[in-house]
């Protein structure tokens, strides 16, 4: 344990040197060096814990107001620590290349690097401390550092607004968290997690309230729907590495908090499992629907975080249900799959944001409607983005598929006590399938529009692939994506200790369960990968003498790049089916006459429905309700009758199921 806490002074020292350094390279070096030392120290200390060793712990008796503070790193904390620090290190390395233009213009990067150090420090605190007050300190360090990192370009009003929006939202979450802690403190008279755990393990109404408050707070932190409104703005405003770290690493603290308190709470009630599952499914669906229609590449990736934490929460919900029902296999699949998905998401989401940053650096825009044909200018970035996009769509043989497959095996094992519950789990699996398919749509759209075809804006001047400091973080993340996809044992080695904590009480299953569940599908994935490689090489050979011609224009002889399908047109048909989630905002002046004299214009945006409704309700109140009431038809129509019929069928089968 001292080795883990040794990281704290090292990181503080690094932050100090980053502020005091004379040139930007010195400042960067100070941050990178201390983060590397801290990462190695922490990793070397927690690896034995991950391998099944006992938890590290240290009690530190300080003067008032903290009192006795216990630090303890169990397998759950160790899992989060072991990748959070190195990934922050890679983000810092990326920053060196990404902010180069600002540095050349004379900007002082010291505070930025110091803040990245503070983010690392907050991980050490949050993932190891067992005391609510110190936990809140760590929580606040992470939140404020992230805010200051977001507003790097503080001269732009838009970015300041996005940062402020984030700051307010994250503190609303903090208030809820403080409320939960106050409630627990009033019941236990202590701030230590052990005392909280002892109180929470007895079922009761207060336990339910605390669970709801904690769930709300952690959901705000991890940007679950409908608490995600700060997220798209913050992610599109922040520098690429900050978006990557926030989405992939920092906001996983919310999920960590959830898991920590689920552990403290012990055996959950059944409704908790169902609500987590439902909430996760809602978040996954809403998040993925939002990704399908975004124009801004980083905003799109931001929404996809909402989707992926939702997927992890589906897993956690299954795990909690399994725990409540006393079914260890569900616990292993649900919690294990969810935890692995957190790690996988960190791998591919950082990769995607880094690639998006490389696009921004080269083209100075990430508006999909202007991009196109980047793959020829940025081949390495393009391949990295494609890899990340396929992985995030959970396509085999990459890592996203592995964790989702584990969650599917929990959903589709028939572990529920009633037929109706089993059918509900199948529905959740169908929801997960829908999320995967829409994610494929969004990612093929993002990659296809930005990297394939030709640039839609002829005035766009695109540079080259980014420098090596930006490429290496991408390569390493891509390596992780491939490794966990083809050798899931590597990912499970990190997560299995944490999973095992949840099945202490009912441990008849060993860590081999997941591996043996995965064994056949992993072999299929490897075979598929091999077959793809061989066939594509053979196909490549067949086309080696090919001629080059212009794209077939279906008889039209003067096509230009403005006539390509755009990002908006690609998703228009899909988005139209979900217009309550994806309200379209149009500003247009269309030409009217047969031979129009004046130029027309049209601009479309898909705005955030929740944010819009929020402001609508706040601002217009009464008239909003009047309009909603006006929507109920006076004459029932076909849709109404169909809905009624569906209701009858559902009720009939419910009765059949219960009887």
């Amino acid at each position, binding site marked *: 344990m001292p080795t883990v806490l040794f990281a704290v002074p090292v990181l503080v020292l690094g932050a100090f040197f980053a502020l005091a350094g004379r040139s930007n390279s010195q400042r960067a070096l100070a941050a990178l060096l201390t983060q590397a030392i801290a990462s190695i120290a922490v990793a070397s200390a927690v690896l034995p814990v991950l391998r099944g060793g006992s938890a590290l712990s240290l009690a530190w008796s300080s003067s008032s107001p903290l009192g006795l503070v216990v630090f303890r790193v169990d397998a759950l904390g160790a899992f989060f620590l072991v990748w959070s620090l190195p990934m922050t290190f890679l983000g810092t390395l990326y920053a060196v290349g990404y902010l180069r233009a600002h540095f050349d213009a004379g900007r002082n990067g010291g505070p930025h690097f110091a803040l990245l150090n503070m983010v690392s420090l907050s991980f050490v605190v949050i993932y190891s401390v067992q005391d609510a007050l110190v936990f809140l300190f760590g929580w606040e360090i992470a939140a404020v550092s992230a805010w200051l990192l977001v507003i790097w370009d503080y001269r732009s009003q838009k970015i300041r607004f996005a940062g402020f929006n984030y700051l307010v939202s994250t503190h609303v979450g903090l208030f809820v968290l403080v409320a939960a802690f106050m409630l627990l403190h009033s019941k236990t008279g202590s701030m230590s997690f052990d005392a909280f755990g002892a109180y929470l393990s007895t079922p009761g109404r207060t336990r339910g309230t605390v669970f709801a408050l904690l769930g709300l707070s952690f959901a705000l932190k991890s940007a679950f729907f409908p608490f995600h409104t700060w997220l798209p703005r913050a992610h599109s405003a922040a520098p690429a590495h900050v978006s990557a770290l926030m989405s992939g690493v920092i906001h996983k603290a919310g999920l960590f908090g959830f898991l920590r308190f689920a552990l403290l709470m012990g055996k959950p009630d059944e409704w908790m499992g169902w609500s987590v599952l439902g909430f996760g499914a809602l978040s996954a669906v809403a998040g993925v629907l939002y990704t399908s229609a975004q124009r801004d590449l980083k905003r799109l990736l931001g929404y996809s975080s909402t989707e992926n934490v939702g997927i992890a929460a589906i897993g956690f919900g299954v795990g909690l249900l399994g725990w409540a029902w006393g079914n260890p296999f569900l616990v292993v699949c649900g919690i294990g799959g969810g935890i692995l998905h957190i790690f996988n998401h960190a791998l591919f989401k950082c990769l995607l944001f880094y690639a998006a940053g490389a696009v921004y650096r080269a083209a100075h825009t990430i508006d999909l409607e202007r991009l*196109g044909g980047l793959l020829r200018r940025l081949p390495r970035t393009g391949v990295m983005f494609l890899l990340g996009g396929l992985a995030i769509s959970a396509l085999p043989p990459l890592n996203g598929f592995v964790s989702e497959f584990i969650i599917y095996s929990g959903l589709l094992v028939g572990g529920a006590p009633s037929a109706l519950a089993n059918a509900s789990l199948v529905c959740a699996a169908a929801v997960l399938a829908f999320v995967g398919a829409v994610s494929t749509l969004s990612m093929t759209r993002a990659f*296809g529009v930005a990297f394939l075809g030709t640039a839609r804006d002829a005035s766009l001047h695109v540079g080259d692939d980014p420098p090596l400091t930006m490429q290496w973080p991408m390569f390493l993340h891509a390596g992780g994506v491939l490794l966990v996809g083809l050798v899931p044992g590597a990912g499970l080695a990190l997560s299995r200790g944490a999973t095992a904590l949840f099945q202490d009480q009912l441990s008849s299953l060993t860590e081999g369960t997941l591996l043996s569940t995965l064994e056949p599908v992993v072999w*299929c994935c490897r075979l598929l990968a091999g*077959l793809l490689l061989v066939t594509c090489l053979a196909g490549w050979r067949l086309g080696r003498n090919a001629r080059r011609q212009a794209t077939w224009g279906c008889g039209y002889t003067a096509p230009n790049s403005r006539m390509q399908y755009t990002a908006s047109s690609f998703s228009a048909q899909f988005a139209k089916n979900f217009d309550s989630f994806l309200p379209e905002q149009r500003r247009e002046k269309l030409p009217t006459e047969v031979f129009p004299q004046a130029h027309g214009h049209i601009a479309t945006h898909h705005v955030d429905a929740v944010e819009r409704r929020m402001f609508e309700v706040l601002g217009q109140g009464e008239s909003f309700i009047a309009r909603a009431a006006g929507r109920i038809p006076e004459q029932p129509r076909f849709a109404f009758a169909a809905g009624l019929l569906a209701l009858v069928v559902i009720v009939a*089968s419910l009765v*059949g199921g219960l009887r």
Partner: protein
Amino acid sequence: MSIAWAIANVLTLLLMPVVLVGVINRVKSLWSGRRGPPILQLGYDLVRLLRKTPVYSTVTTPIFRIAPYVVLVTALGSGAIAPLLGGPALASFPLDFVWFAYVWGLGRAAMILGALDTGSSFEGMGASREATYAALLEPVLFLVAGALWLTTGSRTLCGAFGGHVTDGPSLVIWGCSIVALFIVVQVENARMPIDDPTTHLELTMIHEVMILDHSGPDLAALQMGAAVKLTVGVSLLAALINPWAGTAGLPAALFGVAAILAFAVAIGTVESLIARLKLRAIPKYILAGLVASAIALLATTWRVGAVE
């Protein structure tokens, strides 16, 4: 699984697609009063295409060249776990239908990217439609597979689709599954009434417009991939009605082949008799499949209640 059965499956996977497409085209010709091309026409086409040199658009990147082979491999990969002849598949493991669906997804992603790579507005249009309908359709397959699994207790594709009807509720499940799966096959394989494979207007195409720029061996791979995918989808339907499903033997195989060919005749007939749906109406058609599969799933709870 005996070696003979495995060989029979592999042969079905490689040869049946050619025959299936031939039968469909022959049926369509007969309906329109023509004699039509030979049954094995697709085979001749493939051989001829393989000998040709492809032409690539100047806009394209290596993605365009790789995509057709990804489509082919994923179609074959999904065929390896499908009950092609009604009996056991070449490979089978718990939850293989999840793998099945995601492998189809990979093939679709390759297809879409290959189309977008040409920078053609028409191909982008097809890609957009393909992605949209596939996304709307995805839950149907899972609901059907889930309902059949809850009925048969088998979590493999072969087992779940090879179960036998024993009581009233499972008859409902079975019937709804067939309806839903038929819609899945129509949409996934871009057949009528979703897409007209023989249309000559690019604006109305889905699948055909995405392969406009492919030529030579690449086109052969795409056509074979599409035919294999169709065969695999139809074989799932055939397994559902196969009374010898689940057994590896001559009766199962003979009935399996006959059922696949019967579905080919049905597809040809449907395509000859009805017109393509308006594009706007397709989501509603898919919704019908979703409702059918949801009824199948709900009927599983009814069945458990009835058995108890």
